[in-house]
């Protein structure tokens, strides 16, 4: 009798554990659903930006690793770099084109 009072029957203890487990499962379920919805929304947004689902995948694969904000900011000295002229032989430095007048730099490619 004393034993039963101090230590409730294993049946009731087990019910308590089940209740906690059910609550945890519910939380896990909603967290998973929320994360899933966020991922789906992010993918939909990327697809919209990129032009389609396949483009979104390609964007993540090829574009995002190459896009950088960079550390340069207004007021910094413009870094000097060597460039090649269209003849493929002549090389010149960017600093050769600066000084005297402002220089508008347009970076880009054909595609």
């Amino acid at each position, binding site marked *: 009798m004393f034993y039963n009072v101090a230590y409730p029957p294993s049946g009731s203890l087990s019910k308590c554990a089940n209740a906690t487990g059910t609550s945890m499962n519910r939380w896990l379920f909603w967290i998973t659903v929320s994360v899933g919805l966020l991922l789906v929304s992010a993918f939909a947004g990327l697809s919209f*930006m990129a*032009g389609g689902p396949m*483009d979104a995948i*390609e*964007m993540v*694969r*090829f*574009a995002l690793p*190459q*896009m*950088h*904000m*960079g*550390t*340069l*900011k*207004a*007021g*910094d*000295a*413009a*870094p000097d*770099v*060597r*460039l*090649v*002229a*269209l003849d*493929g032989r002549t090389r*010149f430095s*960017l*600093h050769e*084109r*600066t*000084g*005297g*007048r*402002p*220089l*508008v*730099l*347009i*970076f*880009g*490619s*054909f*595609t």
Partner: protein
Amino acid sequence: MQIYSDYKDHADFLTVYIREAHPLDEWQMKANEKDKDDVCYVQPRTLEQRIAIANDFTKRFNFPLPFGVDEMNNAANNAYAAWPERLYIIDETGRISYKGGNGPFKYDPKEVRAWLAQHYGEVKHAGRAQAAVREVVSVKLQGKEYGASK
């Protein structure tokens, strides 16, 4: 190119050709396909290939701006975080005066025009002014029609 025509007497311009953004072997865009813009190149692996594409570009568009090509170590691209496209203005003292955002979404030539206009005055075009007048007249006419039908 219009900005170049408008301000080339006040500022220098330099186009820097960097690694391709949408080559055939990476993320090719549908708009670049043969039946559309027909801009189909693989990512250049040698400087000769890069120079050849840059020449194709300037010839195809009769591109008048001074041109430089980034070396294969992508030094210019790396130094200026330029890929896929970006605009800068370096002032007379060699310091960065304007840094544009990453293209295509934050690539905004209007900001460059605004900078140049602030320093050298706004350049107005008859075509633009006429278009603006046409728009105003059109809006007024629509207002009249709407008022008349009431």
